[in-house]
């Protein structure tokens, strides 16, 4: 089972690799391939960075109405 992994195969396994669920033999083939392939090393790094950047996106601010509703909910609770 020492078939060399192709780049086309590797890119589809990146998430499984990062989640740590590749079977040991596949993981070895994955890492062996990486060791000799700049393109795939860059691809993996790009995916890591994609995940990091996605995690930093935050658009959500509460609307004044939401804030007001939640505050009055809190104050009611406090009174009782």
């Amino acid at each position, binding site marked *: 089972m020492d078939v060399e992994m192709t780049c086309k195969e590797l890119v589809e396994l990146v*998430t499984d690799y990062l989640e740590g*669920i590749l079977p040991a033999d596949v993981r070895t083939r994955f890492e062996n391939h990486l060791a000799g392939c700049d393109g795939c090393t*860059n691809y993996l790094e*790009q995916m890591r960075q*994609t995940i990091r950047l*996605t995690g930093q*996106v935050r658009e959500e601010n509460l609307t004044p109405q939401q804030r007001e509703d939640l505050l009055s909910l809190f104050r009611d*609770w406090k009174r009782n």
Partner: protein
Amino acid sequence: MDAKLDEIALLNLLRQMDETAFTQLVEKYHSFLIRIARIYVQDPTTAEEVAQEAWLAVLHGLDRFEGRSSLKTWILTILTNKAKTRGQRENRTVSYTEWEESVQSEPTVDPKRFKDPLAHEWANHWASGLEPVSWAGIPEDVSLSQETMNLILKTIDSLPENQRLVITLHDQDELSTQEICNILGISETNQRVLLHRARAKVRQALENYFQLEH
């Protein structure tokens, strides 16, 4: 910077009915709760009500919370139960199981970027000139710019609903695979496939953009 200590401090303040602590908590999690609620109830107003009910239950339950799970997980459980009940009342049954699509077939990277499968040498390896390049040299004022963030948001918004939910819950809300599978009622395998596809599309969008900027 210890998250656990922060949480204990926050809880203590909440138990003393500290308003600032509550504000801090809702700023952090309210939109997240709404997002989860809307998986179960369609109407935005109802989702808002469900989230408010959950907050009230959180406040009332503070003394019972023992810290065996994280505060976030605890709040999420309360919200999910309320949203499920409300969803049933409204007859909206979530059936994300139909998401078990023919998963492996579709490639996430354009096949044209690889050498011909029948090529004599290096079949299915990166075609020359089309290999991914390192992003290490991209300055932070580009990679972390508002424009980049908007691009990511726009790309996520354009994804099919199942992919959009999974990448948001996993990579932004940082829920565990287990939590996501419970909420959406899908298998771990399916969850990973959806996550992989979603990430691959965001990566592609970023690659296109960084190439232009460079």
